[in-house]
């Protein structure tokens, strides 16, 4: 047993598994990258001044009416097909009625019992303990279209939540942006693997969305958001327990952590003989815990009914077949192709996928870097920095083009690896392009032979004992002198050239 920062009692993970079978369901919201919103012509660009991308329709002004964005329907169908779903021949939008200030009409136009795509699956590659991978088939219940809400900013108070805030501001730029909600069927029988499978599913779904080109797929900007439903049932009972729904888990790492946390918390509650409250919970990225949100009981009744202002969506079979022809490569075939082309080992490939860096590495290689260089930077330097700052690796602010450019400078002898890391510091600090960072920080390798030669002479003079050892043929001792020279040159020298000079002078 242990206690989280919220005071939740947690059961040790192994003990959870000894007593319970976890079941989970994942709901992933994908914000489409269509040029305009779901039901109006407003632009969807991220980051505009609040309430500048609005019109009578997405503000819910009296009298305004929606019109379905055909491009969003196309994206929804393509996502459905990529998830091996059936595509509805005829489906409708429905109103989901509830009051909330960031929802302009106080109903969300969504799909209820007639989703555009249903009954699909995705084969998820999950790392195994022995370093290999295995395939877990995740059944997809549905993928449906809906509109996003506005965004509330609660000002004042201590929690940043609506309760206790002094006042709230609402930005309706996001209201009406097209969303696709992808819902899995309950995923059972995973035991200890459940958290990893959850993460791998979201990671692979994200890769698929990127490959389809239908979303920016930025978890840090909320263009992909995951809700994690989790329940525990007594081991071997085959039943489904009461679930909680943890909202807006906004990084791959957190998907895994949230599943694990809820498993440990549920077990503690059940172990005390209490029952799980069916509720919405909030995930806290910083502390890694969930806290209780609004209670989700039978009292919550969305009073769904078909949206009377819209006509049914009836995609022709010809269109669907045409879209089927635009499907990206099968994920497994793609992995095999990339591995062969890059010459990665199974372990290297697994780590690349696991780090969520497959697309980044691919783009970096496409931008001119050697496969091993691309892998080295993303899985080493970038993964470490992402982990330190708790963001997605793709959201660091360093692009594949940056990495390729820096590596090209290293290859040309203009930067050392150490200097390259300083270039990345500058890129992360938003100091411009790699060239601009190099210029501004004065990071170029010193190729002035005179200065280098003088530094080597100085190091030899200051370390006579080491110099003697090298003269005696102990070449390995050169390292200490090289280090001294590099220190003198503040790292801006090519270590290989320094070694040559040392050996030359002491031969």
């Amino acid at each position: 047993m242990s206690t989280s920062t919220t005071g939740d009692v947690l059961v040790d993970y192994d003990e959870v598994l000894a007593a319970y079978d976890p079941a989970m369901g994942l709901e992933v919201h994908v914000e489409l990258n269509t040029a305009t919103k779901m039901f109006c012509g407003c632009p969807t660009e991220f980051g505009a001044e609040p309430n500048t991308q609005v019109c009578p329709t997405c503000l819910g002004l009296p009298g305004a009416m929606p019109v379905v964005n055909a491009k969003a329907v196309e994206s929804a169908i393509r996502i459905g097909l990529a998830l091996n779903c059936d595509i509805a021949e005829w489906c409708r939008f429905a109103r989901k009625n509830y009051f909330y200030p960031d929802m302009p009409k106080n109903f969300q136009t969504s799909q209820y019992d007639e989703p555009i795509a249903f009954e699909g699956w995705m084969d998820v590659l999950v790392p195994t303990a022995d370093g290999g991978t295995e395939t877990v088939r995740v059944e997809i219940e549905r993928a449906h279209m809906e509109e996003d809400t506005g965004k509330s900013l609660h000002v004042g108070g201590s929690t940043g939540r609506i309760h206790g805030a002094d006042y709230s501001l609402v930005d309706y730029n996001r209201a009406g942006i097209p969303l696709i909600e992808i819902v899995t069927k309950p995923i059972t029988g995973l035991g200890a693997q459940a958290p990893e499978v959850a993460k791998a599913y979201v990671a692979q779904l994200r890769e698929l969305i990127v490959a389809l080109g239908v979303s920016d797929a930025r978890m840090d900007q909320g263009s992909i958001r995951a809700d994690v439903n989790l329940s525990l049932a007594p081991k071997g009972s085959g039943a489904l327990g009461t679930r909680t729904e943890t909202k807006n888990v906004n990084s791959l790492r957190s998907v895994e952590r949230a599943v694990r946390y809820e498993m440990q918390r549920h077990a503690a509650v059940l172990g005390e003989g209490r029952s799980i409250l069916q509720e919405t919970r909030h995930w806290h990225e910083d502390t890694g815990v969930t806290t209780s949100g609004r209670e989700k009981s039978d009292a919550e009744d969305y009073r769904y009914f078909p949206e009377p202002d819209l006509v049914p969506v009836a995609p022709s079979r010809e269109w669907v077949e045409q879209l089927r022809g635009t499907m990206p490569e099968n994920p497994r075939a793609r992995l095999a192709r990339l591995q062969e082309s890059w010459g990665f080992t199974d372990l290297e490939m697994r780590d690349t996928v696991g780090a969520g860096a497959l697309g980044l590495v691919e783009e970096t290689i496409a931008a001119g870097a050697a496969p091993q260089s691309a892998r080295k930077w993303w899985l080493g330097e970038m993964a470490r920095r992402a982990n330190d700052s708790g963001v997605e690796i793709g959201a660091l602010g360093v692009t594949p083009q940056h990495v390729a450019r820096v590596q090209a400078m290293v290859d040309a002898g203009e930067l050392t690896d150490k200097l390259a890391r300083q270039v990345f510091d500058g890129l992360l600090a938003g100091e411009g392009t790699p060239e601009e960072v190099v210029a501004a920080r004065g990071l170029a390798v010193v190729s002035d032979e005179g200065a280098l030669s003088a530094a080597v002479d100085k190091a030899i003079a200051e370390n006579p004992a080491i110099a003697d050892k090298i003269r005696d043929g102990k070449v390995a001792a050169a390292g200490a002198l090289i280090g001294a020279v590099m220190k003198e040159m503040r790292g801006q020298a090519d270590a290989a050239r320094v070694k040559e000079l040392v050996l030359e002078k002491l031969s």
Partner: protein
Amino acid sequence: MSADLTRRTAADLAADLAAGTTTSVALTQAHLDRIAAVDGGPDAGVHAFLHVDAEGALAAAAASDERRAAGSPASALDGVPIAVKDVLATRGLPTTCGSKILEGWVPPYDATVVARLRAAGLPILGKTNMDEFAMGSSTEHSAYGPTRNPWDLERIPGGSGGGSAAALAAFETPLALGTDTGGSIRQPGAVTGTVGVKPTYGGVSRYGLVAMANSLDQVGPVTRTVLDSALLHELVGGHDPLDSTSVDQPLPSLVDAARRGAEGDLSGVRVGVITELSGEGYQAGVQARFEESLELLVKAGAEVVEVSCPTFVHALATYYLIMPCEASSNLAKFDAMRYGLRVLPEGVDSPSAEQVMRATRDAGFGDEVKRRIILGTYALSSGYYDAYYGTAQRVRTLIARDFAAAFEKVDVLVSPTAPTTAFKLGEKLDDPLAMYLNDLATIPANLAGVPGMSLPSGLADEDGLPAGFQILAPALADDRMYRVGAALEAALHERWGGPLLDRAPALAAQAGPTDANGASA
């Protein structure tokens, strides 16, 4: 001169403007003068208008006259003024829907039909009174006070569009736009002796119409003659990409159909009298005028038969499930967060958004609106949805099938528009069910999406008040009712020696402006 201009039809005025015998400024001013003389306000007068835009109307009239002078009028009706029901969004003009909750709201955009009026050069005189959010059959549910029937100021002008119909009957405007969800154009037409048309569902854009029940609402013309309705219907109708439910196909010419009908020959036209919508339950004088009209149709060469539509007896119950369901959801947006009334709860220091919503909706909505929100919320609730909304939708399909079967046998269907003539103000205010019965004959058309027209059939013997004759046609065959309606109108005018409204009593002049919203200003 003014009086002459206000008594002319829109078609006459368009001809006058084309001939250069009057100007848009002159006839717009004449109507503004008439409004100032008879409209009064909440306490006296017709009170057809909630807002009069004299300045805007005269500016639009002047621009129209310039176009005429340059020989390039924007449309046949360029320069003919019009009034607009206050449920249609008008850029820069207050739009209240007859509700306190929207008091002071000025839309930043025009409804498509309003944009079409402006583009066609029609000066907008103002916004007309209505039952709050179009919920009612008497205009007594307006939060700004009732409209009075020009035939008898003690009586209701029908509803919800009593303002538009009364404005026509009082010669305050030659044209108006109304909306019809269960009879809100046709029933006021019947009880004020005017003409009103509910077009085929999807025939006229609803974009900018503040919805009561989206699957039933239609915008349509309110006029004094069938031809004027056809002219206005053609002008505002047609496909609108902003309304997904608007029909994207060319319609037969309605003006041609009205002109052809006025020639009086209905040979070969089959007219079906709906068994379930006449006879018992209809006021004797209303029924008598209806039967006389049938005789005139026969005289014009039509074949009149009786047609049974058995499911129509369930129309009222069906309507009172579907309409409140849609309305309860539509009206959720009035929450004080973005526009309109905002009421802070009493005795609360820093109220939450939810508390402000509750206080505002409690203070801003009238009883009838609250009644329908509660009905709809209940009927949509989990566990009741199938029994109520689901069943209602299935009955709706049966009603549409009854129409389809009937239109296999006849070209148009007819009935009295409303069961009675205008009743007294306050008479049915405390009896919602009695009020709802007014729409018995008009509701089936909304449920099935077919077009309907009401035109005057004469005065009931017992009270000397107007009765209405309803003509229904198949969806997209609006032209048929214009043809039959114009033929009947011509025959009736011949019998009466002129329009029915010539027999309406003269209205007493009203004192200056009594309306906070600026009528008569």
